[in-house]
């Protein structure tokens, strides 16, 4: 088989990888903001829940989280009489998103805390509510700070999607393994796959750079 013949099945797998990456990164971003802000909440319960989420998902292996959602959760559900079987795509997106969200939450928290205290004082002097100070003053300054670490996490997430092939999801890594079993042509297949992951990572990096410029437009204004 010529290497071009691998492209069709591999591209089909790459498309699944793209979808997994996009959905789980969006889920992760939502979780990151929710729990990153939650960790700074004056409300003890919200803070405790946020800390628990962050520590649990940062402190356990992504692979185990994935297996737990896909294999263990349905059995646990059976015990209490609920059907908790998840389609592989849902389990994959959930595990990846929950994992990346925990790391992202720490990025969000750190960026918010790096906003100078004097900014909060100015907001208070103008009688903004704490909520208005957070969303109107602190977050718009913190978000551009979050973008470089978010970019790292997004690329990390793209590469982590390869793990979902272990729950028989037809992503790029899964297709590669299938082809290899069929043709024994490991070198060609894995070289093509390497370049495909690398190409996708470049796209993710470029997208995050664009986003970074977009959310920090005010920084680049010049006379």
């Amino acid at each position, binding site marked *: 088989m010529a290497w071009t013949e691998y492209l069709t099945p591999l591209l089909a797998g790459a498309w699944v990888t793209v979808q997994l990456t996009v959905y789980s990164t969006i889920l992760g971003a939502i979780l990151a903001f929710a729990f990153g802000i939650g960790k700074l909440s004056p409300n003890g319960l919200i803070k405790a829940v946020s800390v628990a989420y962050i520590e649990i998902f940062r402190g356990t292996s992504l692979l185990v989280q994935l297996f737990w959602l896909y294999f263990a959760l349905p059995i646990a559900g059976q015990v209490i009489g609920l059907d908790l079987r998840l389609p592989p795509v849902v389990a994959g997106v959930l595990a990846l998103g929950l994992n990346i969200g925990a790391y992202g939450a720490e990025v969000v928290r750190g960026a918010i805390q790096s906003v100078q205290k004097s900014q909060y*004082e100015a907001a208070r*002097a103008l009688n*903004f509510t704490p909520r208005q100070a957070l969303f*109107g003053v602190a977050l718009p*300054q913190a978000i551009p700070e979050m973008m470089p670490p978010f970019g790292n996490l997004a690329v990390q997430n793209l590469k982590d999607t390869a793990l979902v092939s272990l729950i028989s999801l037809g992503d790029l890594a899964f297709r590669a393994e299938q082809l290899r079993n069929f043709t024994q042509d490991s070198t060609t297949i894995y070289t093509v796959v390497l370049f495909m992951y690398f190409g996708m990572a470049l796209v993710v990096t470029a997208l995050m750079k664009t986003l970074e410029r977009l959310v920090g437009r*005010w*920084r680049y204004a010049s006379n």
Partner: protein
Amino acid sequence: MSDHIIKFDKVGKSYGSLKVLDGLDFEVKRGEKVTIIGPSGSGKSTVLRVLMTLETINAGVVYVGNEPLWHEQCNGALVPAGEGHLRKMRQQLGMVFQQFNLFPHMTVRRNIAEAPVKVLGLSRQDANLRAEELLEMVGLADQADKYPHQLSGGQQQRVGIARALAMRPKVMLFDEPTSALDPELVGEVLNVIARLASEHDLTMLLVTHEMRFAREVSDRVCFFDKGRIKEQGTPEELFTDPKEQRTRDFLKAVLDA
């Protein structure tokens, strides 16, 4: 009904064993322009920060317009105030900060208009109009669409003044407004403050090291030392004929510098 808009009644404030305000008694009349001078650590900035509700107090009562600032009446007793009361009281005060503290992600216009929209409930259009009038007043009408980092320090501080005025406070607090500026930019900021002082019946409280300026604009100068007022009087009295040795030493030190 007294004509005092601000009154400190035996106010104490300490950090651990360090007393920043030590049983301070201090009153300001409606419309009065008062300058606070004194060595660093004498509690002069703390007076402004307590009024702006950026720092709490440990003892005594602060009144703004006859109402306790940090306390609420509850069954005839004074209890620590809740956020609702603080918000209502804060409405009467505006503050200009040493480091300007403008919002870097907002244009100059938005810096000024944001609080009137979000806090006072003005329409964006009315708030922008108000912002532009104020920019005219501080001589920056052509800078409305710039971001703070595109302006000089003196221009930024004038925006800071406009931003505080946009909330229509009854009392303006200036916390060393020119201390962070290059010497050649001090004048433009002082001019704006001086005009404000002469053209409005606004009550003004100013912490500064600009002695000549203090002399020109203020009705009264207070010399702070160790968390209390050591000496006060008209600028004429205090600068030409200080009674206290401590005041003389301080004035000699800063005027010789």
